[in-house]
């Protein structure tokens, strides 16, 4: 029994820390704090850089969209004016040929003009 008590006492006796224990603990704490501080400092910088690129990309997209829109408007206008010119020319040619038919029909000199019956 005494032997068991002795063994337990021996096992549970307070043991002092090894040399430099507290220094190692303090050093580890210090390095941990530094790392978290660095991470904390780096995060906003990353966000700042990121948001700057997002703003640049957004601004560039708006400029490109405006330029494309303007180009499309100019192109539409050119096509519209070309179509208008063609329309006027087409009507001029049509009018010209109808005019020729009327002239020949009304010309007193010999000509052959037939109006199809029933039309």
């Amino acid at each position, binding site marked *: 029994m005494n032997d068991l008590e002795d063994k337990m006492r021996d096992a549970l006796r307070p043991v002092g820390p090894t040399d430099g224990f507290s220094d190692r603990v303090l050093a580890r704490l210090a390095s941990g704090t530094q790392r978290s501080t660095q991470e904390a400092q780096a995060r906003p910088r990353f966000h700042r850089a990121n948001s700057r690129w997002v703003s640049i990309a957004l601004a560039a997209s708006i400029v490109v969209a405006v330029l494309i829109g303007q180009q499309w408007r100019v192109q539409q206008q050119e096509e519209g004016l070309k*179509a208008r010119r*063609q*329309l006027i020319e087409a009507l001029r040619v*049509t009018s010209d040929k*109808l005019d020729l038919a009327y002239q020949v029909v009304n010309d007193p000199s010999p000509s*052959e003009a037939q109006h*199809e019956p029933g039309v």
Partner: protein
Amino acid sequence: MNLRIAPTLLLSLLLLSSAGAAESPALLRLPNFDSLTERASESVNITLDSTLLGLAARFLDAEDPEDAAAKDVIRGLTGIYVRSFTFEEDFAYPRTDIDTLRKQLSAPGWQRLVEVRSRKEQAHVDIYISILGEKANGLAIIASEPREFTIVNIVGSIDLEKLHKLEGQFGIPKLELEKD
């Protein structure tokens, strides 16, 4: 039940849309005039489908009398096609192209409105009209003169009165015929 109706409805819609997009019988298949374009001293090649007519209409000024007349004429039209060639020599164009067109114009639905032959000017003008039901839905003009050959095909509901009113517009002097 709904699942059975859906494909039928979709098919009906597709058929309806394809019928709507079908070519008008008043639209002529104009031959390729590339060889004539090369030989002609002047050529006019105008193709205005409904999209381009709509675009052109947006650029017509309602305040301008010429533009207003044009706008009035094209209302209801779905296409204007013009091919016109001027040559430096008499009858430099082949008759086969004209015959191809005349064949198309002999199809049911087309009626010759006017046939004009002038011996003096050697001009030959035929005006055809396409009628669907009781309405004119197309017009074709074939005009051949010694040095000029013109085809006009107008598709859509045509008001001949408005076309006649074009006379005096677009730089064409009002017709004043002198009679001996």
